[in-house]
């Protein structure tokens, strides 16, 4: 009796055939340039802030992303001298209390406690009342996390404390990021929007798989970071605590949680 078999071959070239064909081609006139290396991370901690210099920022971000941030009103990375990112998630002190009052926020925890149980719009209002910005997804995943991890590789103790606060699931904190995702397809920062194609499922991703805006291009079963895919019409991004330093896109901006805080960033001209 006749049998069903794969007769039509898929358009797949076998490895040996491909290699033989490629061998017939001349070698590239000049070998492809080696991947651009980011300047090594230099620990520069001043008054509770890491100072990240311009060459490192330019190496880690694309021109189109910098243009997007500039046009959104977030800040001008092209003309900055450095950015400063707080060593830790924000905690209460008198400055924070005063800024909260200026922003008409009712925040009442004692000094030294983390500023948590604060929703996304209030977190942004508080940070801006302090004269800072909330980190964007791009700054977090393309600049800050790689910077901190590089320092940890160099056995920098301060960076280790920072990383622990981000990854420790018993005492660490998650943190709000600046970005809003609208209709699962549009990134909004300030007054500017950008269409994005986001993975529609949870999964892992690596630095190499991050697009210019700091988001995963696709997800897979293994990787440095975790991605919680976007659900809902408007979502505010936050960095999840845990070893996967997950990027969560499934929380609404009204979420308040005792483990979810905020960090300060400033762009210096």
């Amino acid at each position, binding site marked *: *009796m*006749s*049998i*069903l*078999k*794969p*007769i*039509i*071959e*898929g*358009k*797949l*070239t*076998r*490895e040996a055939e*491909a*290699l033989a*064909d*490629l*061998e017939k*081609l*001349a*070698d*590239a*006139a000049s*070998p*492809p340039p080696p991947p651009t290396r980011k300047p090594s991370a230099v620990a520069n901690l001043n008054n509770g802030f890491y100072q990240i210099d311009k060459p490192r920022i330019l190496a880690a971000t694309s021109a189109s992303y910098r243009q997007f941030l500039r046009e959104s009103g977030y800040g001008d990375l092209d003309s900055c001298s450095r950015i400063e990112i707080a060593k830790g998630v924000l905690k209460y002190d008198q400055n924070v209390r005063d800024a909260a009052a200026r922003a008409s926020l009712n925040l009442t925890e004692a000094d030294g406690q983390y500023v948590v149980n604060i929703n996304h719009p209030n977190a942004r209002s508080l940070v801006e009342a302090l004269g800072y910005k909330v980190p964007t997804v791009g700054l977090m995943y393309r600049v800050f996390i790689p910077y901190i991890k590089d320092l940890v590789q160099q056995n920098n103790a301060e960076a280790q404390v920072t990383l622990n606060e981000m990854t420790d699931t018993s005492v660490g904190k998650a943190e709000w990021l600046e970005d809003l995702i609208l209709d699962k397809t549009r990134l909004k920062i300030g007054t500017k929007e950008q269409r994005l194609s986001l993975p*529609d499922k949870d999964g892992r991703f690596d630095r190499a798989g991050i697009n210019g805006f700091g988001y995963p291009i*696709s997800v897979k*079963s293994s990787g440095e970071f975790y991605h919680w895919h976007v*659900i*809902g019409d408007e979502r505010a991004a936050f960095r999840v605590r845990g070893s996967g330093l997950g990027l969560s896109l499934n929380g609404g901006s009204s979420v308040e949680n005792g483990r979810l805080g905020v960090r300060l960033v400033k762009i210096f001209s």
Partner: protein
Amino acid sequence: MTNLTYEELKLPNYVNSSAAVTLKVKDGEVVKDLPLTLCDVVVAAELAGLNILFVSDTGRGKTQLVSDVVWSHFGGHDDGGKANWADGRPNFEIQELFERTKIDRTAAVYDSDEATQLKQERTSRLLVVVDEINRAPKVRQNEYFDLAEGKYTFRGRRLKLGKDGYTLFLATANLNKSNGDFQGTFELDRALLNRAHLTIDLDHRAFRPTPEDKIAISEREADPRLKVADPRDISDKIIGEHKEIMAKTRTSDPYMLAFSFMIDDGLNFCDKDTFKEKTTTFPMLCGDCAYSGKEMCSLVKSSSDRTTKAVKALAYGLARVAELKLGRAIEVDALDAALQAYKFTTYHGNLNDVVAQADFGSRKQELMEQVAGKLGERIDLLRAYLPIIDEGREPIVVVYNNNGKERRVERSNKVIDALRRKGVSYQEKDLRNELKENGIGTEWVDAYARRFKK
């Protein structure tokens, strides 16, 4: 294997040599296209034991076709025949077929339980035909559900129709597709439609008799009335073929399994839906959707379990008919056979009615042709990855151009090193991403690939 021949399966009066499907077959060392006629498709379904609903305007030969099957394959529906014939008229009672009442007047006693008896000779017949089924109102059509499922309920007991696990249900319907011409016909019950494993629209361009057929018919005789063929019973051979096909469908075939996933989980995907699936939201969300794979996912929703099984059985049936036609053992491409079978099986209720009406003037079989074409392109994508999955590796390839020709090669360090050394730009592609971009859901891919992990 039985000694059934293609000649024995030929229908004596109904003439239609239009190529309804074309199969990719390997005959010896030669790979070629083998066209199968509409009659071949009907016979393939017959061997696979799949119910068929024939629909068309009047005068397309539906009744002649089923009459030929009844008389030349099952010996007719009179005494000694293996078929039952019912008309879909409103006053037809199914009991007329399967029950009789015996009254002994001399005893002057009438007990309905005693008097009503089952015609076992009738229930063991292999084929039930209901001609012009939509002349019966919906409530009466409900009574045909059981027949389509090969069952008959007598005194509260559901009895199996047919013999040796074989039963077949053929029905015809005059469908007024858009202008409501046919007086005295009723809408077809959806549940009954779902029990028709195949729907064959004899109005469809590609399924109509060819001009040569029409000349042959006109030269044969001018009498337009139904011609009843001489009785011939080859049902024992048909049952034997059916058993072999069923045995094959019970085996696990990785290609058939992949195809089933494509038309089930794959076509259930909707990017706009919150839960990424088509349910009550289809096709409402398709209108203003801008998803890259819309040209596929907006046309059709996923097939039921009943349909995926029917596709598999019909694919084997088509392969068997192809072999009988050539008169020698051949190989038939699995995914191609499944795709050809799919054209006939997923039909009512699964297609986007808005598109069918707006773009095809309600010609659903035309839309099915387009669906099959689009699905075929996605099947071609899948083909490139199946050998990689089969060897237990991740379905990831690199794509590059070599002398203007696109090449796809399984991703490996050697290939990537060579591409870099030669300065050839390339892209990495993953089956999951490629299918999803093209409107096919991929939740099934990981589980499918794990079956082959070494």
